[in-house]
């Protein structure tokens, strides 16, 4: 503990000194993060050989109380070295999100080769550098390497290493690489893993968290400062994480651009001679959109949606702490790099003449920008807890999209068909036959059969939206604001988030629903249960007067039916409810009587069958479970209500649409006669 306190003091002092000396970009000119992993990189792009080679200086600080004898590094692009890598094997031979690898082209392969590692004493450590496979026994996988130190690294000490490397970019199919002269350079340099000491994300003992590159997983890294010099052919237009400090003309028709990015956990860049750069501003944040010439008319779609996202996240979560955002619009052949997030730098994607009614560019921009919060600021471990990154971000994506473009039309907006963004996520999870495939907190590479997308993206969006509706927007936003304030530039875990939900939302939840919010969180995150309540039936039975043989004042009475006193109420009405799913959640039940009276009650939703009884003078004509549609997790909406007087107009509307559509189809085919 004493050692740890010393470390803490040292860290604070170090951060203070570093922030005072460095060229800062944040508002208050101070470090926003611990700045554990700092890189000074100088590289040159060979646009013909598709390589990026150079040297980096890593300045890594041991903020743990442990003495370390080894460092772990990611060499992500070795995933594309051959068919035996874990990524290639897990992805069925090289494919991601429907884009396959062109294995016939020798240029398609990629790697990240380290040729030299020296310390400040100029000692060569390359012989102590070896590949390891912490996740599986695939010895062919070279995406993680271990460096044995020739002397231990004590707590609070900083190690400086010079690493020479060459990265061969693969032909793009999975996030990073090249397509003709378009380069999206991500996961491209030897990158140190995260050392999680005891207490970090629930770790009992200190350990390196440095996973192999998997087909279904993203990344995890520590914050730091990146100073990057990039040498490219002079006709190339470059965009990158951070801010551009200067641009110098080099020899042999090249130029060197120097970037600085502070308090970020990754650095990505792009270049192409064909980019058209459109610039804009939101408050004091500079926006650069790097467009393909054919997509130029759609630049406004990116810019407007990005401004909406900036505004929304700032208002509902916390301020955007950086001064720049770059949006990359990839070419068709580089679509494998579309829809990807890096700090201050995202890739979107569109197509020539894409109709306004298809809001893919807006959606992907809002989603990827959101990762600047749920990943780049709230730096969760995407390998192990992908839902905290993709799920939370997808939840916000649906909020922003639906509030900005229409609840029922945000995603697809044509006269003949409309779909909201949350609706698309509900359809993706609730109505999928695979919705019990795995829990949401599973290690991401262990998902199979589409489970990663469903459980990391769709299901969290659905259960967080349910929580949002149950708690109310104000309380939900307080949760997000607290989460941001407490965990920005750190590594929160699922438990950390749940603690905040309980802290901020439990009182209200329990007051409203007399139920424990922990149950909801546990079932949503850690189980595969699905939710389905059914309003089985309603009934109205006339209450008969009480008659028969009675004893009163010692006398036997035979009360005949016609002499019996009339009951207080005319009807005994019952609402018969069933729980078909395993997931239990308190739900509101709204009952409407023939006289127009409405009564709402809450059922804790725990029993398998439940009957609500009313003694009334008016019959029940309808009843609804969850009338305000708060429980978005319910996988069957049709059985949530029951009415004795159904409105047929909606059914007829659909029937008329169906009839007309079929008339048209039939008439069309009758032309071939």
């Amino acid at each position, binding site marked *: 503990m004493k050692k740890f306190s010393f470390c803490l003091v040292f860290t604070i002092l170090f951060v203070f000194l570093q922030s005072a000396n460095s060229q800062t970009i944040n508002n208050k000119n101070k470090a926003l993060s611990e700045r554990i992993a700092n890189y000074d990189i100088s590289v040159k792009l060979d646009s013909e050989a598709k390589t990026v080679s150079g040297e980096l200086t890593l300045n890594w600080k041991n903020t743990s109380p442990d003495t370390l004898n080894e460092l772990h590094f990611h060499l992500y692009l070795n995933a594309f070295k051959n068919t035996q890598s874990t990524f290639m094997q897990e992805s069925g031979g090289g494919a991601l999100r429907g884009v396959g690898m062109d294995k016939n082209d020798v240029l398609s392969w990629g790697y990240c080769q380290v040729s030299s590692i020296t310390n400040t004493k100029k000692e060569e450590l390359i012989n102590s550098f070896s590949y390891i496979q912490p996740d599986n026994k695939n010895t062919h996988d070279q995406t993680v390497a271990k460096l044995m130190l020739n002397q231990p690294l004590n707590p609070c000490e900083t190690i400086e290493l010079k690493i020479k490397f060459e990265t061969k970019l693969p032909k793009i199919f999975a996030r990073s690489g090249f397509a*003709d002269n378009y380069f999206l350079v991500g996961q491209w340099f030897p990158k140190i893993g995260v050392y999680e000491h005891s207490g970090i994300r629930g770790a009992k003992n200190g350990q390196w968290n440095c996973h192999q590159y998997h087909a279904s997983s993203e990344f995890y890294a520590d914050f730091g400062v990146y100073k990057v010099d990039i040498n490219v052919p002079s006709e190339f237009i470059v965009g990158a994480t951070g801010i551009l400090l200067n641009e110098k003309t080099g020899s042999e028709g090249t130029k060197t651009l120097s970037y600085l990015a502070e308090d970020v956990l990754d650095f990505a860049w792009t270049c192409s001679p*064909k980019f058209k750069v459109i610039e804009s501003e939101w408050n004091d944040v500079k926006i650069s959109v790097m467009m*393909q*010439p*054919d*997509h130029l008319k759609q630049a406004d779609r990116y810019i407007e949606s990005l401004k909406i996202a900036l505004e929304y996240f700032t208002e509902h979560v916390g301020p955007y702490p950086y001064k720049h955002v770059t949006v990359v619009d990839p*070419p*068709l052949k580089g679509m494998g790099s579309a829809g990807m997030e890096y700090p201050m730098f995202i890739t979107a994607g569109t*197509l*020539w*003449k894409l109709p306004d009614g298809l809001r893919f560019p807006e959606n992907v921009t809002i989603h990827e920008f959101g990762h600047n919060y749920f990943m780049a600021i709230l730096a969760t471990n995407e390998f192990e807890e992908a839902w905290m990154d993709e799920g939370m971000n997808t939840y916000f994506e649906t909020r922003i999209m639906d509030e900005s473009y229409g609840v*029922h039309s945000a995603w*697809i907006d044509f*006269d003949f*068909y*409309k*779909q*909201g963004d949350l*609706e698309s996520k*509900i*359809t993706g999870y*609730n*109505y999928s036959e695979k919705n019990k495939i795995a829990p949401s907190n599973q290690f991401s590479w262990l998902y199979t059969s589409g489970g990663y997308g469903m459980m990391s993206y769709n299901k969290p969006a659905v259960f967080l939206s349910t929580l949002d509706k149950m708690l109310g927007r104000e309380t939900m936003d307080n949760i997000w604001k607290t989460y941001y304030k407490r965990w920005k530039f750190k590594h929160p875990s699922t438990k950390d988030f749940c603690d905040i939900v309980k802290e901020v939302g439990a009182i209200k939840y329990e007051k409203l629903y007399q139920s424990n919010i922990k149950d909801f969180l546990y079932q949503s995150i850690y189980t595969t249960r699905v939710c389905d309540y059914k309003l089985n039936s309603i009934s109205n039975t006339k209450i008969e007067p009480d008659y028969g043989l009675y004893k009163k004042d010692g006398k036997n009475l035979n009360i005949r039916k016609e002499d019996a006193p009339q009951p207080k109420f005319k009807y005994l009405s019952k609402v018969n409810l069933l729980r078909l799913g395993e997931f239990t959640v308190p739900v509101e039940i709204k009952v409407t009587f023939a006289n127009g009276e409405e009564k709402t009650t809450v059922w804790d939703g725990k029993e398998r069958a439940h009957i609500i009884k009313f003694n009334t003078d008016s019959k029940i004509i*309808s009843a*609804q479970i969850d009338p305000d549609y708060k429980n978005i997790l319910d*996988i*069957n*909406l*049709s*059985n*949530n*209500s*029951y*009415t*004795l007087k*159904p*409105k047929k*107009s*909606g*059914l*007829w*509307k*659909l*029937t*008329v*649409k*169906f*009839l*007309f559509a*079929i*008339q*048209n*189809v*039939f*008439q069309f*085919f*009758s*032309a*071939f*006669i």
Partner: protein
Amino acid sequence: MTIKKAYTNGFQLAIRSPRMIFTLYITNFLLVALFALSFNSALQSAVGNSMLFDNFLKNDNSLVLSDILNNGGEGILAIIGQLRWGLIAYWLLNIFLVGGIIRTFNKQRYSLNMFFGGAGHNFPKLLGLSILITLTHLIVIGLIVFTTSLGIDQFSHKFESERMYVITVAIGFLVYLLIAVILFLASDVSKFYLLLNDSNNFLKAYFKGIGFVFRKFLKIYALYIALLIVPVISFYLFTKINGDIGMNTGVGLLIIFGIQQVFVYIRFGFRVWILGSIFEFYADDLLLNNRIALDKERLSELAAQKADLSKMMIAKVEAETSTNDVELEIIPPVSDLEEKTVDTETEETFDYDFEEQKDSENQNDQNDEDFEDNENDYPEKPVG
């Protein structure tokens, strides 16, 4: 015949044939209504007592549709699955009906008996022709898809953006449309050839049709394009009206349903108009150019049986066939005269240019049977 005249004559044929168009419309409606009512029943059964649809009238909601299809939609999905059989049934039904349309054009008037008599009589040969036409379309589509794919394969490395892919596919589609117009024209002409010659050789008819289209390419292509203008405009107007009114209230629902049905009805009118115009164009060409040899001798024999009328008719037919005068006088189809006396139900009749033709109807009664046998021996000139 000029394009203008074929265009207007076709229009005249269409507007004089409301009952025939209604027959086409109602067969479409009834067949589709079977599916629509089953669809409605399946919906009622799935969510009849649910309140899920309560707000659907006011607000389309994709989630409601997803929910029904996923949770109560077995019946609905089964009906949607059965639609393919409905489509085949409707295709066959249309082949049947086209025989009736052409018979009606040929006879210049409409009666249910005659319409369905013609439909039944012509069905086998039109079925063969339709299969041939469909195969031709499929072959053309296959060739275009193959060529386009080949082009994309060969040149995709030079494509800098998806624009070139889109343009390539659009060109392929456009080429298909251009060829499809020729195929549609040829198929219509071949139908007339098949029926006017009472031939069963649909392959020959199809090649004749294609040959005819190429001989008259510019004129007939222009005619077809002109014929497409009004349907396109009407489609635009329909979508605009449909969007403006919307199905958000009960009244709106009824109005839109009415408009939709009127639109479907009008489209059948357009189909008749197009067929009529091409029929006019083709039949006129046949007469003017003697493409089919008139059996004048036989005509004379037949006409001789027509007492006073026959002399006049022969004289006029000879006068017609011996001149290239475009403003040809119209000869009433002899077989028409015969059928008019046979049909007992109400008929839609067309105006004739000659008063004496009306006078001659009764005189033709006695010769009905003779003419019944020979009605397809020569082309009947439609009303111009």
